[in-house]
Each structure stands twice: as C-alpha cells, then as structure tokens.
C-alpha cells in the first residue's frame, strides 16, 4: 500500500495551483503568430505583409472546423435513419460509424491541404495584392 514511489512522483498539477508561466520566448506557435502577424505596429514599409493575407489564412482554418462539426452531426443522423448501419453489419455498427466519420474528417483535411498551396484562388487573388512592393507603385505615380 505504501508504495515509496508514490511519494516521489510529482503530483498531477491541480487546476487550483498556479499554472506554470511559460516564458513567452518559447510560447506556443499560435500565440506567437497571433502577435507577430496580427498585432504590433504597422508601418508603411517598402514591402510589408498585409494583414488581410493573414486573416484569410485564419478564416480558412475556421471554415474547416465548422465543416467537421457539421459532418459529425450528419453522421449521427445517417446512423439513426439508415437501418443498414444499425443492424446489417456483422461488425459493430458504431465502429463502422466511426470509420465513416474518420474517413470524412480525413477527406476534409485533405481537401484543405490540397486547397492551401494553390494560393491565388479567385477570392484570394485581390487580397494578395495587399502585399505591396517597391517605390514605383507607391510613390512613383503618386501625383
């Protein structure tokens, strides 16, 4: 009962105790990207990244999340109303359901990966114009 090891192993961090404060230099990528891409002072450089490009990236990710949730709900719905899923299979229908959902999630994930690299899709094109370059475009023909 009195396992000596039990006393040596650090207890699980309880939620009531102060969380450890990670130094922000090793902060999570999400936290760092949020700040260096979306916060900070914006100065009109000769080249700079327009905020809109970044927002576009974020919005894409959000759309993906919404789709997966929806797929799950639809999954439950199919399963309730499709007798083939609740009885016919010799295997576990829930496992089957699980497989279908996983396949769907995987398909969505692939869709996103496929979509991501080809940047200038229709709607994106004009936002990418937000990356400005060179003196010529900015000042050369100012007046």
């Amino acid at each position, binding site marked *: 009962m009195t396992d000596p090891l039990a006393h040596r192993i650090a207890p699980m961090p309880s939620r*009531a105790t102060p969380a450890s404060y990670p130094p922000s230099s090793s902060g999570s990528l999400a936290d760092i990207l949020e700040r260096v891409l979306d916060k900070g002072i914006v100065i009109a450089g000769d080249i700079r990244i327009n905020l809109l490009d970044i927002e576009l990236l974020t919005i894409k990710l959000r759309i993906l999340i919404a789709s997966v949730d929806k797929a799950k709900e639809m999954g439950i719905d199919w399963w309730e109303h499709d007798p083939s899923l609740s009885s016919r299979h010799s295997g576990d229908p*829930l496992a089957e359901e699980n497989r279908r959902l996983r396949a769907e999630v995987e398909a969505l994930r692939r869709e996103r990966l496929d979509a991501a690299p080809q940047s200038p899709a229709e709607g994106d094109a004009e936002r990418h114009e937000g990356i400005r370059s060179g003196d010529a475009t900015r000042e050369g023909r100012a007046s």
Partner: protein
Amino acid sequence: MNGEPGLTYVYAVAAGAPRLDESLTGLRGVGDAPVTLLDPGRSGSPAPVFVVSRVPAGEWREEALRSRFEDLGWLEDTARAHHDVIQALTEHTTVLPLRLATLYQDDDRARAALRGQQAAFSARLALLARHAEYGVKVYIAAEAATADDIPAEARAQPTAPAVDGIRAEAPAQPTASAVDDPHGEGRAHSTAPTDAPSPGRAYLRARRAQHHAREDRYLQARQAADRIAAIAAPLATHTVRHPAQTGPLTRGENGENVLNEAYLVPDEKAEAFRMALDEAGQGLPGIRIEVTGPWAPYSFAMSSAPAADTADRPDSRS
C-alpha cells in the same frame, strides 16, 4: 559586408537606452542575420531607434514572400526569430514591436521613415515604459469522452432507463428495432438482453450527458470571465480582447479556447495580477485559465486608442 543586394528588415522601434547596442551583440534575427540598431542620425539625443537586420533581397522580395508565407515551417522559423529579437530587447528597453516582415529598400529609406514618425513613436514608448503584456486565455477543459469512448460506454451499460427521453428524437424507433431484432438474435443471443437499447440510443444518451457537462463548463467559463474582469482587469492599464484561437494550430490537450485577452500591466503590479488570475480559476474544475507572458506590448503598440482596437472594431471582418 553588404555586397549582395539586400533589404532592411525592421523588428521594432526601441526607446534609446545607454549601451543598447552592446546588448545586441551576438543577437541573430530572421535568416540568422545579425541584429543592429539604426538611429535617426542625430547623435546625443535619446531618440527612438529602429532595430534592424540586413536580409537578402532575393528571399524577401514581394514575389518570394508570397509563396514563403504559405510555408508553415518557414513561417514558424521566421515568426519565432522575429519574436526572439523583440523579446530580447524587452530586457533592456521599451519596445514597440513591428508586425512581421516590415522591409525597406535600404537603411536610408528606413531612417527616413523613422524620422518621419519620431514624435509618435516617442509618445507611445513613454506610455508603454515599465509595462508588459500578458495573455489570458480561458479554455473549456477537453472532454473526457472522445468519439472513441462513447461507443465503449454505450456498450458497457446495456440497460434502457432513458428510452423515454430518446423517443422524442427517434420517431423511427419501432422500425429500427424490428429490423434490429432478427439479426440481433442470430448474432448476440447469448450475451445481450433483448431489451437493450440499440447502440444508437445509447450513443444519443451519452451524447446528451456530454452536452449537459459541456453546458456546465460553459457556465464555469462565464464565471471565470466575470472574476477576471472583477479582480484582475483593474490591475491592468489597458485590455484588448482578441478572437478566440481556433484551428489546427491550437488543437491539443488544452480544450476549447473561449476567451483570449491581452492585458497591459505595470511591472509593479505584475505579481498581483498573476495571483488574481490564479484566484479567478479556483473552484472551477471544468475550465482552465492560461496566462502567458510577459510579452512585449504587441497588442498595445499601435497608437490608436488601444482599448477599442482590434476586437471591437465594427468594420468588416467577415
């Protein structure tokens, strides 16, 4: 040294400080380039300076950046390098972090930009002196039951006390069980009681229980937010609410992010601020409060009214 064509990359505006240049010795920025100071050209005055490095034009021109910004590996390295320079500076002086990838054709053009906005930079730096930014996020704790666990639980409790509750949602129930029975007898005759709920009903029941637990956690999150507003926020000079973090980058054991705020806290109140946040999370087991920082004042660097910026802007962010 500057033989190949280069661009001037600006990390931050920094308040002039004695021997600031010495503190940068050995510091490397994006692309491992050495970091230096660029002063406005008037010696002797404590004017704000740019913190810069020279980067190869070929890799940082507009066309190159377009494609590189979609490479998450490159983006991460660059973002961390940018951030590390800024973070290192905060140990020596007050900084206004610049957004990633602010580039000038050369030092002269950067210097012109610095001179042009010197007054605004000075004013902002004065406001931010001896303050640091802290990130405060509230997470709904990750659910114990994952999609994999639900079926397992459902199978482990083959009684049907909650059938009434299910009926409303499953009008197709009679047919479903009629179809279910013949096959069920042939297959699971010896083990399963015949009145066991179908896996579907058990699944729905588990989902409903999960839903209630979830609502409870949201309630706790609201309580946490109220407490943070009541006991931690008064210690801060400014507050900004950021959009909650979602998406693959934030996926993990943290759970769902429902609150994401940044606080600008005077250094002398930093400890009290953290203690207040610890207190805010007490007795709320369904949520987690995460504090990050101290950060350079990224969320407060813009000179427009900081409290109203970013999140509450009514313009189109759709």
